[in-house]
């Protein structure tokens, strides 16, 4: 279903949809004890670091409020800021392209690469290009794209999918990474150990030749300044600098919500992002450029792909404030146990549970809004104060509405709710129904709790017990008590 008729991210391209229902995928992930250990180790490490990095900043809440307000301003005047950005980038020698969806963006990028005559490109880690399945589209066009971020390289060499926004190979431990390198990297030293420093050195040697020879690079963008046309890529390894600097042609794909209105706004986001994502005072490298610089050819692709559909929902649009820091993943009790693959989309965890269903329409990701305990930890750490729990509840209602609108005949849930409404709308019916609940006492005799409900109700008790109905309903007790008191009054 689309919200207000806005087109969502198209099916059949990119990676935004669950392949299996979340409960099924999560159950599969939970059986992998290695995965649970890897995730538990990594997320607990980063949680402690982030807390320390944030505690250092005395005005964190003020920065957070400003970050949220700046992004809300962007969303409110997105058309104006996009036009301003286009004007600035064009004035500085860049070319701006507009892509309504994943297919169009893939086509634009493929054509741009073809025009250079190159068959190989290097890539900086980018969520937007993962979202639209750009690598697959390029491969289909005979163009080989090499991921240069270490974790993305691990994922690509392992024929795997990313499972975290910041650290896509978080589900792999050092042993597994060594095995992947030995298997897939022809130039990996045979004596490679599982020490992270050695693994990193192997990746450096492997990619160095590619960097120095690369003619075309593809990147995402963390921020784009409407006022000045400046783009920013925030990174750690230097692979971003290599890709942004050395090749003759640079193609940047960014979601339309990545804009910041003014240059000055970076003073907020360059404080919020590094401390929230890698838990550093500042990430090792941030590159900024405006238009075509140092003799390069520069193309900027502005991507919608369901973002306007997300923007259409007043109670869901704040998800577009997200700056992809991944702090919400690291604190989420559900993500920590299931990992990212269970969510299906490249955006996993709490932000993914509110973003993916909005980008695709809730019909295509109906389980994700329910993949949460609503504990609120994600809201607490979000640097742009997205109220993810409230949004999850809202999206749950959209999922139910969508099912009602599309289901032939009532769903069992809807039938039950309708029956309940009929019962509760009349006091006599309600009293009768409560007394009928006594029958439930038969079920919980052995443990004094109901462990299994019969028939279609069994789903409710598959993962929880139900309290045994009391001997007497509250209403009966109250009536009895009032009668007794009334008799007392008579005597007095």
């Amino acid at each position, binding site marked *: 279903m689309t919200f207000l008729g*806005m*087109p969502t991210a198209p099916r059949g391209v990119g990676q935004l949809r669950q392949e299996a229902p979340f409960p099924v995928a999560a159950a599969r992930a939970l059986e992998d004890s290695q995965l649970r250990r890897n995730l538990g*180790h990594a997320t607990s*490490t980063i949680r402690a*670091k982030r*807390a*320390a990095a944030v*505690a*250092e*900043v*005395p*005005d964190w809440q*003020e920065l957070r*409020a*400003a970050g949220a*307000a*700046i992004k809300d*301003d962007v969303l*409110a005047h*997105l*058309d104006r800021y*996009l036009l301003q950005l286009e004007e600035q980038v064009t004035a500085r020698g860049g070319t701006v392209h*507009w892509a*309504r969806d994943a297919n*169009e963006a893939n086509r634009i990028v493929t054509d741009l690469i073809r025009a250079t005559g190159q068959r190989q490109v290097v890539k900086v880690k980018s969520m937007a290009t993962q979202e639209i399945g750009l690598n697959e589209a390029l491969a289909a066009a005979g163009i080989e794209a090499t991921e240069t971020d*270490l*974790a993305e390289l691990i994922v690509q060499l392992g024929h795997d999918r990313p499972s975290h926004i910041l650290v896509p*190979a*978080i589900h792999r431990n050092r042993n597994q990474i060594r095995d992947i390198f030995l298997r897939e990297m022809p130039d990996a030293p045979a004596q490679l150990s599982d020490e*992270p420093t050695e693994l*990193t050195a192997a990746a*450096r040697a492997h*990619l160095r030749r590619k960097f*120095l020879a690369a003619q075309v690079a593809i990147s995402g963008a963390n921020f784009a300044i409407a*006022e*000045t046309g*400046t783009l920013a890529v925030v990174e*750690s*390894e230097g*692979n971003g*600098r290599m890709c942004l*600097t050395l090749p003759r042609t640079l193609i940047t794909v960014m979601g*339309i919500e990545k804009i910041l209105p003014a240059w000055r706004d970076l*003073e907020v986001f*360059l404080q919020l992002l590094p401390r929230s994502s*890698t*838990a*550093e*005072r*500042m990430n*090792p*490298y*941030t*590159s*900024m*450029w*405006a238009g075509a*610089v*140092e003799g390069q050819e520069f193309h900027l692709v502005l991507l*919608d792909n369901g973002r306007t559909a997300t923007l259409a929902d007043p109670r869901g649009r704040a998800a577009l404030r997200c700056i992809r820091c991944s702090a919400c993943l690291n604190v989420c009790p559900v993500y920590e146990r299931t990992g990212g693959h269970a969510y299906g989309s490249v955006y996993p965890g709490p932000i993914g549970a509110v973003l993916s269903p909005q980008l695709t329409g809730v019909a295509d990701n109906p389980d994700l809004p329910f993949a949460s305990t609503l504990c609120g930890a994600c809201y607490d750490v979000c640097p742009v104060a997205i109220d993810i729990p409230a949004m999850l509840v809202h999206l749950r209602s959209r999922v139910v509405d969508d099912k009602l609108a599309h289901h032939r005949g009532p769903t069992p849930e809807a039938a039950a709710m309708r029956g309940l409404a009929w019962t509760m709308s009349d006091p006599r019916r309600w009293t009768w129904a409560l007394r009928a609940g006594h029958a439930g006492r038969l079920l919980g005799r052995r443990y004094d709790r109901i462990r299994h409900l019969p028939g279609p109700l069994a789903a409710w008790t598959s993962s929880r017990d139900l309290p045994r109905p009391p001997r007497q309903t509250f209403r009966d007790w109250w009536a009895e008590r009032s009668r007794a008191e009334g008799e007392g009054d008579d005597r007095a």
Partner: protein
Amino acid sequence: MSSREEMLARIRAVTADISGQPEVSRRYRPAARGPGSADEALVGLFEERAGDYRATVRRSAAGEVARVIADAVATRGAKRIGVPDGFPAEWSALLTDVVDPPLDVAALDGLDGVVTTVAVAIAETGTIVLDTGPGQGSRAFSLVPDYHLAVVRTGQIVGAVPDAVAALDPARPLTWISGPSATSDIELSRVEGVHGPRTLDIVIVAELGATGRPARLPFRSRPGPRPPHRALASHFRGTSGLRGRSGQRGLPKCSTEARSST
């Protein structure tokens, strides 16, 4: 309708309900310590924070720079050093094997290292920013070689991120550098040295302060233990005590110790 017109039309349709967007409130710490305002405490904070990111920081008196640079380069075992246009000749005077630009990527890859100046340095985050101005070379210049030595004048050190943003030109290509290249991609533990220079040295050069009086600096040419700048660091952190003592390196690593020490 073109894709551009269609996307703009979609946006206008779905944001029509938003009205009266309140002003963005900026109650966070504003820019306060711009270029030329650094005192000894701020210089000390920059030195400590850059050190936290495994950059090796040296101090130099104005007349000693050439010797300090030559010493640092020798310590790294680097010989062929790229020196960009506009780098003060008196600073590179004692380097023996100097390679001048223009240098293509292959030539840069053949260097042992480069020396550059910077545009701005940020004390609170231990960051240097290069804007390809005189003495800084192209973006590739400070990227491809494995060793980068950056010379920071004390007058270029600003307090925090807002000061740097205010001091920089958004039209120039900018590279913000905080320590050597690093990754946390394997089990989220930090490893220094991936694709960018694996070694970063910073030389802080004392110069006249904004007031025209020489900033009083304990000139030092060798890295070594130095007193933490408690008052200032706690101003920037808003908490008492100091987390990152020099010698206790790297914010991430010290997070658990930090809890016990504060």
